[in-house]
């Protein structure tokens, strides 16, 4: 990824522009099922990101899983600073959208390609909800 930034267009978007490192997996996401929200790490043993810190990272994942708790938990995590920088999904359920709306967390969803295959794990990305764009910077 030298020189030319690659841009992916999202159909659904919310929040402010942010830049950060992408944590990428084909797995789903639920704040209750997958996270140790005290330590700020993925704690579900069979999640591909198990043991990794999500704090300040752009999570690029397949879809929202699990129950409704994430709608509150994203706000609670934000209040303690133990929160991802942004959420990017192939598809998203209402719970994470409602949670992101309450927490003020940037979110993109709905791409023409499998976004978890298109974005390299560990790459620097820009999430631009106004432009409905995810840019891989390097």
């Amino acid at each position, binding site marked *: 990824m030298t020189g030319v930034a690659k841009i992916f267009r999202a159909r*659904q*978007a*919310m929040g402010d522009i942010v830049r950060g490192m992408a944590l990428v997996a084909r797995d*789903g996401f639920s704040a*209750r*099922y*997958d*996270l*140790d929200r005290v330590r700020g790490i993925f*704690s*579900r*043993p*069979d999640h591909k990101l198990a043991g990794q810190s999500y704090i300040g990272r752009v999570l690029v994942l*397949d*879809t*929202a*899983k*699990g*129950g*409704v*708790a*994430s*709608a*509150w*938990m994203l*706000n*609670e995590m*934000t*209040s*303690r600073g133990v929160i991802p920088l942004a959420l990017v999904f192939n*598809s*998203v*359920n*209402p*719970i994470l*959208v*409602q*949670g992101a*709306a*309450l927490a003020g967390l940037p*979110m993109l969803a709905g791409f023409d390609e499998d976004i978890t295959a298109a974005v390299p794990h560990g790459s620097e990305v820009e999430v631009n909800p106004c432009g409905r764009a995810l840019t891989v910077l390097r």
Partner: protein
Amino acid sequence: MKLNDEEQEILAGTYGPVGVKALQHQLKVGEFFGAEDFVPVTQAHVMADTESLGEAGVRWLEEFAAASEDGGRVRVPTITDPRGTDFAKAAFLGHTPAMLDLERRAISAFVKLGVTMTDTCINYQTIQAPTRNEHVAYGDTGVVIYANSVCGARSNFEGGPSALAAGLTGRTPRYGFHLPAHRRATLHVGVDFVPASLNEWGALGATIGRIAGNYWAVPAVEGIEEAPRSDQLKHFGAAMASFGSVALFHLAGLTPEAGRLSDVAPAGLPSHRVTRADIDALRSCYRSDGRVDVVVFSAPQLSLFELRDLAALCEGRRFAVPLLAATSPQVKPDCDRMGYTARIEDAGGTVLSGMCFYQSYAREIAQANGWKRLATNSVKLVNILGGYGYHPILASMEECVDAAITGRLA
């Protein structure tokens, strides 16, 4: 989004500051999903245990409650999902004074907002089941999938903030499962066996949920001939929602929108077959390594009939490890009155009211009591508790009761 006169008045503050905040939140969500307008709802159901809310969520609720003094109580019947504790059993569970204080603050705020504290995730069995085509704003995925699929009602997953907003405004953005187009099946699943126990119904739901894979997928299931019981579909739906984030399924010839398969399933859908071997494979992921530290019946809360069955299994037995059974505050008095509570608790078990195990600081309960190996017949519960540091074990109700007696499960 198009706003009618009443919605413009809400947004202008005519009904107080709480309505303004609630509608603004709903507009953000509705615009994300491309909703054209709002749809009136008749009920809201708010999931708001304090483990999820934390201090920040409770403060948010208290700000709403304080603002409601200038106008802004709920406009439609608004009820609650299980709380984060059973105050009568908090010491036994290891809940701390700080947890209980947070619970009391949340309850106080809800009451000020006019919310009815039902504390149940089986409101479709205990409070008032919605009717076909009734638009509602339900929280708890198990409640939504049952209401949509079995009752034919119309709801999206509404997390706590959005469900409360719907209660306060009396409406919700019209997208997703409020629209007929999204209620059509997107995949066909053939089943060639009938589950026997509740954990098998849950395992079947989980397997279909994994195949479906996301919120917008709607499985049309064919091959179940006889009408399942409410408790069977409760476990089936709760597991499907838990494993797949699925909010609606159809059972050909059984559920209200699928009198015939062709009513909901266009020709040429992707088709899958689920066999008993598939659910055996899922169950094998939650095997015992011998020891059991605690047995839990919860997720969803137990009906009176489940408690009757459990009480019969407990009669005259003596448990070596704790056995917990969670039910709703509506069912608990009947459980007491029928003698079921006494039979379970005489054996050394505990019947909990108004809470659900995983919504009640499950990680802290484990640390306080030294529980790791947890046996249950709830497929939803085994799916959740791995992330909380448990070794969850899936077994039938009978096997779980036997495990409580011996402290072991083969």
